[in-house]
């Protein structure tokens, strides 16, 4: 199964925001819950616009949520 090279802390951040559900986050940023699941499980890298929307919801800088992880050769 392919994993994208961008890892994220969304699950942890949701937990820290009063256990925000995937559905609540999805509604806040205008995507489906399946897309949140795909991002959290690193099956999908969001666009820059969506990444900023997520950062805006959590009120943290982008790099606190997403980190680039180079592929090991």
């Amino acid at each position: 199964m392919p994993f994208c090279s961008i890892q994220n802390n969304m699950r942890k951040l949701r937990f820290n925001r009063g256990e925000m559900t995937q559905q609540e986050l999805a509604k806040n940023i205008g995507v489906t819950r399946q897309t949140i699941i795909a991002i959290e499980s690193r099956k999908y890298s969001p666009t820059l616009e969506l990444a900023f929307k997520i950062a805006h919801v959590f009120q943290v800088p982008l790099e606190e949520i997403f980190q680039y992880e180079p592929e090991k050769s």
Partner: protein
Amino acid sequence: MNLSYQEKSIWASLIITSLMFIYYFSRVLGVLTNPEIPETSLIIVFIGVITVTIFAQIVIQSIMAVIYRDEVKDGGDERESLIRLKATSISHYVLISGVWIACMSFYLNPSALMLMNVFIVFFVVSEIVGFVTQLIYYQRGM
């Protein structure tokens, strides 16, 4: 397996398209193996298959949209759009290959029935490839 509304909708389209064209090609096979059946009867079968397919799609997709109304989102989000675009791109190559093969088959065997059915085969295959590609991307990720 936990499927989203989009995946269920694609599965429905895949099943309807496959069933309808399995029926159509079984009738084509009947015409090819039995010379007593007129070739022109296939035109009526084809129009019937297209009509039933469109009707079945409208009914089933409408029922699904009502059942899963909480999941239905106009136009989908960016991930769904990307999956659709990638699948359309792959299905486009299959269709273009089919057009070339149909042209070559007409050169080798200039029959209207043959030409029409080679076009239909590749149209159906490209549709199925498009649906299957979307399902793979939904399950496997991108």
